[in-house]
Every structure is written in C-alpha cells, then in structure tokens.
C-alpha cells in the first residue's frame, strides 16, 4: 500500500505539515491567551492575521521597508488596531454573555475583510521570500525561509508560554482570570491589563501574518479560511489551555501533512474527525486537567 511513497513525498508533506502546524500553533495560542483572560472568543483573529500580512505587503510596496523591518513594525500596528478594537467594541459589552463578544468580533471580521477586498481585490498578492534558496539534506530540499518559519514559531510559542506560566506578569494574568476582584484589590488595573492582553494576542496574530506572507499568498480571505481549523485546534486542545493549543497546533499540522501522503482524499477532513473523536472521548479537551466546565 505504501509502495508509491518516495522519501521526497513523505518529507515534503511532513515539512508542509510542520509549516502549517507552526501557524496553527501561533494562532491558537493567541486565541487561547485572549480567551483565558477575557473569556472572549476572538473570531477576528484570522482577520487580524491577514492584516499583519497586508501591513507587511504595504510596507514593502509603498515604503520600501523590507521583511525584516515589517517583522517588527506590522505586529505593533496590528496590536494598536487590536487595542482600539477592544476599547470600542469589546469593553462596552464585557459584562454581557460571552456570546456577544464572539458575535461582535465576527461582525468586525466582515467589515475588515470587506474593506480590504473592496480596496485590493480578492486575488492573492505575491510577497517574495526574504531568504531565497535552501539546503539539500539528501532526502529532501529544505528552503531556508521554511526553516526560519519553523524555528521562529517554536521560539515564539515557547517564549510566550514561559512568559505566561513562569513570570510574575503571567501569574497576574492567570490570577485576574480566576478572580478579578482580588487582583484588583492588590492595586492592579485589571481592565487595562485586559486591553493590553487583547493587544498582545492580536499582535501575535499580526506577527503570524507577517511570517505567513512569503509562504502563502497575501489575500483578504487568508485568515477566515484558517479560523475553522484554529477553532478545531482550540476545541481539541481544551479551551484556554495555552500549552494545549500550541501542542495541538503542531500535532494537527503534522497529522494533516501525513494524511496527504497516505490518504490524500481525507486530508481536508482529518482535523474535523480528530475534533469529533476528541469531543466524544475526551470532552474536556486533550490537555485540560479539569473536568467538563
């Protein structure tokens, strides 16, 4: 059954899987951070990721600022956009049912994507790789940029995780999630912390967008197509579990890549089936220690 599978095919798809997984992990992590503190399911995460890619493209095309500059500028621009969004849209409804915050970020997605599509059309815009060429590993060809994506995303995910789990700032964040009143009584401005957390999560989405620009085409719908997978990743990993989101993201990317090798017809469905199985057999999430909420 595996006769037709060459090492090139196997490792090629595996690499694509790891690349996709890198983006799943980074985006799911941002979603989990925002959900963990604010109980907001940020539907606009995909649109903000797309904005990151678009800002990078605009910087290059109109200001001549190359990729390495955009890697710093674009996430800040997108984070500021996120902070404005939080102040205007999320803060006024912070005390209502969390469904409203999902819906308002969904509505924002419609507006953001619509405006970008109106301005730049729906076709993808090319963004050249800042690291052309690659290295031949003998069994496969490894483009430098893809290697950079994998390394960068692993470092970002690990760094963010350490920041939240093992620093004082992180413990404030987690404590504010458990009981905002007590944290507030310590003199910490919880609403401002929420605004900054949202900005940070959105900035991560923007950063992923810049990283993605040379890999995928820069197009208005590049984010919303990904949101379905990201939702599935977060549901499988357990809502609000940051490490769960990261590990599930990489895992599902790899599983998806391998499915393309061994059973190409099932590649579009495999993540969904895993979600189904996880919901039936591990209703509280793969990486969640707590019982069903």
């Amino acid at each position, binding site marked *: 059954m595996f006769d037709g599978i060459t090492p090139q095919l196997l490792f090629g798809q595996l690499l694509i899987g790891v690349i996709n997984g890198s983006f799943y992990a980074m985006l799911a992590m941002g979603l989990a951070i925002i959900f963990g503190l604010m*109980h907001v*399911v940020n539907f606009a995460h995909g649109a903000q990721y797309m904005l990151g890619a678009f800002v990078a493209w605009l910087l290059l095309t109109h200001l001549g600022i190359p990729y390495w500059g955009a890697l710093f500028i674009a996430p800040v621009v997108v984070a500021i956009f996120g902070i404005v969004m939080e102040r205007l*849209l999320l803060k*006024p*409804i912070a005390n*209502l049912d*969390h*469904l*409203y915050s*999902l*819906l*308002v970020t*969904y*509505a*924002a*997605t*419609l*507006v953001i*994507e*619509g*405006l970008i*599509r*109106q301005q730049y059309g729906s076709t993808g815009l090319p963004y050249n790789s800042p690291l052309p060429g690659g290295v031949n590993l003998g069994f496969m060809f490894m483009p430098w940029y893809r290697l950079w994506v994998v390394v960068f995303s692993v470092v970002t995910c690990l760094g963010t995780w350490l920041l939240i789990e093992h620093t004082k700032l992180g413990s404030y964040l987690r404590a504010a999630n458990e009981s905002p009143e007590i944290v507030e009584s310590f003199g910490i401005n919880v609403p401002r912390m929420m605004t900054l957390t949202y900005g940070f999560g959105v900035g991560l989405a923007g950063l992923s967008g810049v990283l993605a620009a040379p890999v995928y085409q820069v197009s208005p719908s590049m984010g*919303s197509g990904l949101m*379905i997978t990201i*939702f*599935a990743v*977060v*549901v499988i990993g357990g*809502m609000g579990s940051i490490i769960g989101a990261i590990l599930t993201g990489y895992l599902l990317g790899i599983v998806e890549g391998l499915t393309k090798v061994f059973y190409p017809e099932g590649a*579009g*469905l495999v993540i*969904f089936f895993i*979600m*189904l199985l996880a*919901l*039936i057999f591990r*209703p509280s999430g793969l990486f969640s220690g707590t019982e*069903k*909420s």
Partner: protein
Amino acid sequence: MRIALILLGVAAALIAPFFVYPVLLMTILCFVVFATSFNLLLGYVGLLCFGQAMFLGLSAYVTGHILKTTDLSLEIAILAGALVSAVLGAFVGFVAVRRSGIQFAMITFAFAQFVYFLLLRSEFTGGENGMQGIPRSELFGIFDVSDTLTFYYVILGMTALAILLAYRVIHSPYGEILKAIRDNEPRVESLGFKPERFKILAMSISAGIAGFAGGMKAAVYGFATLTDVSWTVSGEVILMTLLGGLGTLTGPMVGAGIVIVMNDELAQFGEWALIAQGIILILVILFFRRGVVGEAGAFFRRRQARAKDAPAGKPREAE
C-alpha cells in the same frame, strides 16, 4: 391590538405580490423560516449555532436531488430534506452539547465547514457549479405550481405552518423547560431533567425547520448552491435574528425582511453588502440588543405605562 396587528400582517402578506416582485417576497419568506429556526435555539435555549447554514444548504440539495431524480410530489421532497437536516441536527447536537456556551458555537461552526466540504466533494451536488435545473413538481401530486403567483401563496402557507410549529414548541411544556435551561441550567438539572437531551431535541427541531426553509428555497429558485451552506449565510441569520429581536416570535421575521431587502439593494455595490451587515451587527450588539421588535415593544410599553400613570413597564423576560 395584538390580533389586529396579526390580521394586518396576514393581509399585507396576501396582497404583497401585486406590488412587490414575488421572487423577492418568496426569498424573504424562506429566510423568515430560517431565522425562526435559529431564534428557537439562541432566543429560547440560549444555544448559539454558528453553522445554521449547514441545515439550510444540505436540505436544499436533498430536496433538489429528490425533485430531479424521482416523481415524488413537492411537499414530500421538502419534508424529506427537512428530515435529513433534522437527523444531522440531532447528531451535531449530540456531539456539541458536550461543551457548553461559547464552545458550542465554535463546534457548530467547524461542523458546518465540514458539511460544506463534503457537499463540495459529493458527486450529486455538482460541486462548485451547484445543482441546476431543479423542477417544481406538483403539490400533493395534483396541483400545478409552476406559476409564480400561485407558488407565492404555497410558500406563504408553508411559512405559516413552520412558524406555527415553532410557536407550538415554544409555548408547550417542553418549551418552558427549554427556557428554564436558558435561564438556569443547574436548577433544571437538579429538578431531575436531563438538559442535554432537551438541547439535542431542540437542535434537531431547529435543524428540521431550517431544512424546511432550505427545501422551500431550492423549489423557489430551481437551483441549490454552496452559498447556502457557507458561513456568510450562517452569519446572516444571526444578524437577522438580532436585528429583528432575539427571543421574540416576530423579531426574526422583521429582521429577515430588512436584511434580504438590504442585500437586494446593495447587491450592485460589491463588497458593501457584507460591510453593511458587519456594521449593522456591531451597532445592534452595542446599542440595540433588543432588536427592532424588542425596542418597539419597549417603546409602546413605556407609553402605555405613562398613560396609565403606572411606575414603569414590565421588565422584559427575554434578555
């Protein structure tokens, strides 16, 4: 006053096709039924199904397939489509009620994409091209409904039946338990009911009504496309329900009417239809969460209260 309003509405619906393009009216009616199905879940059980379009679209294809390949009459084809959607709804409910609140929304969203993908790949749907040339078979096997005006009244009758069904569900003892689950689920559980079973059944009924709308839509247009399954339609029905008035029977009808007319007017301006939908949804969520019907009701109650010199209007229950 209430009966007068209902009679006025019925009279308006009866004479409308002489003034407005009937296909536009039938589109509105299909979405009235669709929005009613969505409101049944969000407004009365508190479940946000973020993939309601899967029930609409699947049933449109099933109904279309039956009409194209068999001699079965129109109402059987539509009911069969609704039944298939109801079964899908029960299955989605079975899986999704394992997670409460916001995760239910995310799971149904992922499910809808899965159904979209399956329909895209299936042979019988025609993939990207959609299913074309769906015939309008005779109603009950005897009545010819190919005339647009006649068909409008058939669709109007079906819409009335679907709304009556939703009304009966909401005002039955079962509906009372659904509302109790919405307001305080642990209390309902402590009384010995199993909320999950009630939710799964509600999901199935809602999916069946959405499927009924999908079958109607396939018969109206004579085609079914992937748009009916897409997440933009799932989002549209959320806008209709919230704009009209969540948890009110007439709200989704008003909302469906406004959104369909708006889409029709803005269709020539490209992306602006979706942008307008987003902006309106934001405004509704931030400032008018009771929707058109809810705000109007509150306005009249305030006036009545002032006229009677009573303290204030009765607090609304569905909020």
